[in-house]
């Protein structure tokens, strides 16, 4: 097969792992993989931004009504050119097979969690327009089970200024299902953290006690 991103042929190396462990298949080549930059070193304990101690945004959040909502979080990758191109092809060009690109990483991060995995939901209009939910599809590609306790009430975040985003009205509503004690929210892109905090607030109201998150990208 060919690399999903650059279309160059992928070397097919048969391995014992692939044969017996039902390993997730690589769908991109080494060169494309190296284009994504993993976040490492000391990071902000809440949002995963490379930083000594709490980052500026999280320090601000901790002075608001959203203080303490998010226990901890992990962000996997930087928002570099390669990642921008990836998101463009996946979300904007709707190339659904790209949900497999980070399947292995997501499984490694989330496979052993005891918390309930909750993807950030899309607004129904947006979902219909895009024809698929990018986060649900990524979790499915990684073979992870997830559940949904929220519905999205308001339209997109993308085009707003940082200030507008941080003070947006409630973005999510509880869907009435019993919420487990431990929740792990999953989103693709952490920018200001508004989305995740709104989701956490609603889930806490509905009975969740410990909420952490995983973001694929920290911009």
């Amino acid at each position, binding site marked *: 097969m*060919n690399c999903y991103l650059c279309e160059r042929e992928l070397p097919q190396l048969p391995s014992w792992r692939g044969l017996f462990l039902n390993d997730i298949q690589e769908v991109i080549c080494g060169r494309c993989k190296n284009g994504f930059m993993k976040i490492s070193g000391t990071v902000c304990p809440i949002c995963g931004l490379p930083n000594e101690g709490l980052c500026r945004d999280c320090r601000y959040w901790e002075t608001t009504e959203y203080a303490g909502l998010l226990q901890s979080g992990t962000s996997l990758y930087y928002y570099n050119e390669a990642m921008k191109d990836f998101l463009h*092809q996946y979300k904007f060009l*709707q190339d659904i097979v790209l949900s497999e690109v980070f399947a292995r990483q997501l499984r490694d991060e989330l496979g052993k969690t005891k918390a309930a995995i909750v993807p950030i939901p899309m607004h129904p209009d947006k979902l219909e327009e895009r024809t698929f939910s990018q986060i649900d599809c990524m979790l499915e590609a990684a073979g992870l089970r997830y559940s949904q306790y929220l519905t999205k009430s308001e339209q997109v975040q993308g085009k707003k200024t940082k200030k507008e985003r941080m003070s947006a009205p409630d973005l999510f509503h509880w869907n009435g299902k019993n919420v487990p004690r431990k929740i792990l929210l999953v989103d693709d892109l952490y920018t200001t953290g508004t989305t995740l905090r709104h989701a956490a607030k609603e889930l806490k109201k509905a009975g969740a006690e410990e909420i952490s998150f995983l973001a694929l990208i920290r911009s």
Partner: protein
Amino acid sequence: MKKRIRNHERKMPLTELEQFLTGRIWLREFMPFAQEEVDSAIAAGKIGVKKGITENKECTRCLERSPQKIISFNCAKCQSVCYYCRHCLKMGRVSSCTELIYWADPSPKPKTPHSFIWNGLLTNAQQRASDEVLESLSCNQSHLVYAVCGAGKTELLFPPLAKALEKGQRICIAAPRTDVVLELSPRIKAVFPDSVIHTLYGGSPAETGFAQIVIATTHQLYRFENAFDAIIVDEADAFPYSFDPSLEGAVIKAKKRESPIVYVSATPSDRLLKEIPNQSKIFGRFHGHPLPVPQFRPLWNYRKIFSKNKIPKSLTRWVNDRLAKKEPFLVFLPTVELIEQAIPLFKKLDARIEKVHASDPERKEKVLKLREGKISGVLTSTILERGITIPNVQAAVVGADEAVFDSAALIQIAGRVGRSSDFPAGEIVFFHNGIVRQMDKAKRQILFYNKEGFR
């Protein structure tokens, strides 16, 4: 010579919608027109609608049908299993529940005035080929122009193009690479200043009106159907056209069924040479000088030497010679990785040496700077093997024995040298780690052209 092509009385002007959609096949949701306008034209039967992916799981736009490219998914829009096409994804996704539309009710196109401004200087060989193309087009037969690099292929197409426009035909000039399209477009526009000419490639600016001539990358032809009275395929042997059979399908889909194809190439495939009955051959350059013949020079273990952060001695000598003589030069390398590894080393010889590869957004500017003498030389991948003309340029291929440099690529690279009549000679060196058959084939072929061209 300025010739005004006779034209007939103007009939009803076309609506902008008809001008746009005639001969095209376009995603309904991406139409650059108001939705109500499109909807009412569909209701009136003016616009036809096709499913994006057919029942046989074939993409209606690019005709792709391999299961690796036609992907199934649970569609949240239509709440069922849909298929989408990965092959032409970058032009806007086609899926089972999207629709492609086309102009179903073509009206006779009003004949618009054309002028043909051109000094009309063709060599005897060009003139003969030009007449032969004209003859083939007039009886709807396909034709191959097999002409060496620098033979003046584009010029010989002007008279047949003028004739076609006079007849009110719609013509497409297609080339596999954007660089070639961008190079052709201003030349064609200068010769036919009154004609509506569209230039289409990935990311090209929007055009208006009904184009009599469309100059496009072969990829863009996925978006046409039953549109052209003739298609000229320039550089028919170049990547990706020669590697992606669906591009050939696109050319056939874009033309009307009876319309002929004119292939133009300096290095046609054996298949083209065998399959196209009408052929014109030009083996001499327009300025009458022979093609520069490649020299073979060994460059043993050059990869190892580069990985020790050194440039092999004989290559250093060659580059220093060019720098001393102030000759612009191109050094072709087999991989992008090797270019990256080598560029800092070459910068030490001269800081004005630059690198270029396929995904370099400044490619055009760098080629221009080389032409203007603002940079001294360029390290490049095979991306610059065709379409570029730089007076007095000298070329070297490093690793001419590697598989990426097949004989066609080597002939094209050699064809960059000595193109202008002011500097008809020049050096082309194949640095190698052992002579391979493709190098021999290229050299033999060039010697053959020189012999034939001077008969």
